[in-house]
């Protein structure tokens, strides 16, 4: 099998970007999400549908998907949101505080809803058997967090800044540092799994997963902002990242659960 170089991937990324700009110039709407068929991310080749999705009108409030799974205080423990306190010792790496708000497309807070995160450790290694990157595991860091949003839709995690890591999409492929986020809204149709990045990472341009979001503004919304007010004196550096859910939201009656 021929080796695929970063240069090959860069060309493929540029090609997909030109296609998007041509679509835009022809009057197509902004694409806020990646197209599932994105050749530079090679694993997408056999895993994207070829038929157009069936549109379901979200105007019917009794549709099952316009209601949502609910979670409560019994589903989390107090230290779930502090990934630095889940073991006997202190994890290695740069402590960070990540905080923001979970909102729907109308700017309304999503209250009392579950947010789950997972990430590599400071060396860029996941606590997962399939991750064979020869970087050290940290016995004091698992990299899994959960929390419930408050009445303003706010969440806060204390964790370690994850490291970048290599993967096998192509030769010398590296993922920029990121934290995986899993989010529920006030409707199952708003379900979202995504990744949060750190500002000014030099790997952004090389990464076909981040570049799968071809719209520049949309892509920039995946990058957290350094926020000095969130930094904790003598303890951690602060990052701010708000999340906005797509899709029809639930009826108002469900708010304030």
């Amino acid at each position, binding site marked *: 099998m021929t080796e695929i170089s970063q240069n090959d991937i860069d060309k493929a990324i540029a090609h997909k970007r030109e296609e998007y700009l041509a679509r835009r110039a022809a009057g197509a709407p902004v694409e806020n999400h*990646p*197209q*599932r068929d994105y050749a530079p*991310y090679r*694993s*997408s*080749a*056999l*895993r*994207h*549908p*070829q*038929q157009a*999705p*069936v*549109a*379901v*009108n*979200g105007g019917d409030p*009794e549709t*099952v*998907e*316009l*209601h*949502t*799974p*609910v*979670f*409560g*205080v*019994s*589903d*989390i*423990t107090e230290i779930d949101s502090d990934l630095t306190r889940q073991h006997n010792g202190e994890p290695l790496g740069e402590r960070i505080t990540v905080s923001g708000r979970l*909102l729907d*497309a*109308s700017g309304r807070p999503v209250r009392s809803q579950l947010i789950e995160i*997972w990430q*590599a450790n400071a060396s860029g290694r*996941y*606590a*997962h058997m*399939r991750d064979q990157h020869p970087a050290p595991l940290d016995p004091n860091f698992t990299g*899994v967090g959960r929390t419930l949003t408050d*009445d*303003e839709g706010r969440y806060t995690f204390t964790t370690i800044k994850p490291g970048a890591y290599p993967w096998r999409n192509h030769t010398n492929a590296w993922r920029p540092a990121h934290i*995986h986020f899993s989010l529920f809204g006030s409707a*199952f*149709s708003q379900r*979202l*799994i*995504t990744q949060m990045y750190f500002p000014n990472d030099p790997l952004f341009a090389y990464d076909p*997963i981040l570049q799968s*979001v071809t719209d520049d503004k*949309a*892509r920039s*919304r*995946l990058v957290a902002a350094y926020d000095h007010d969130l930094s904790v004196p003598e303890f951690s550096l602060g990052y701010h990242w*708000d999340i906005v859910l*797509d899709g029809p939201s639930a009826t108002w009656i469900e708010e304030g659960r």
Partner: protein
Amino acid sequence: MTTTSPATPLTPTPSHTIGPFYGYALPFPGGPDLAPAGHPDTISVHGYVYDGAGDPVQDALIEIWQAAPDGSLDGAPGSMRRDPVTGGFVGRNGIDFTGFGRIATDKDGRWSAHTLPPGARPGHAPYISVCVFARGLLNHLFTRLYFPDQAEANATDPLLSSLDEERRATLVATVEPNRTYRFDIRLQGEGETAFLDFV
């Protein structure tokens, strides 16, 4: 605190793939077991996830969400109940029906869950909402599992009746012995599952 300010339209946060390493974070013990243990009405739902080459997808994550047997869509907390002593999972309480399940596919690309039959309102067939995540899938996919033994309700269901026979068939499970239903998901190609977009 209530936010009463007029709604300001915001642009959504883009989706990303779940990647290969969610397995130690998202699945939880009891994730596939929505039905209280020993409940006489329990049904089993299961199937395979296939890619465009017909190979099983070994790193997909399936989430299901459904009405309770009485048709209620309120759900309940407690799908992933925790033990405050050890931090581990204690399982569901065996009484409440949360309506939510989460199952990672195994090495055979297979998933299974045990639940109660969903209720439905008049004019609509009962179904289980299914959300599919996978490595290689940059944006999750929604579909629905309908029941083959609800032929009358299926015939008039607004979604099913809007689809041609081939697409419609991908949303209807096949019936097996012992209150079991099989529902395969084909991400691409021949027999591709009909996926839904809520607009």
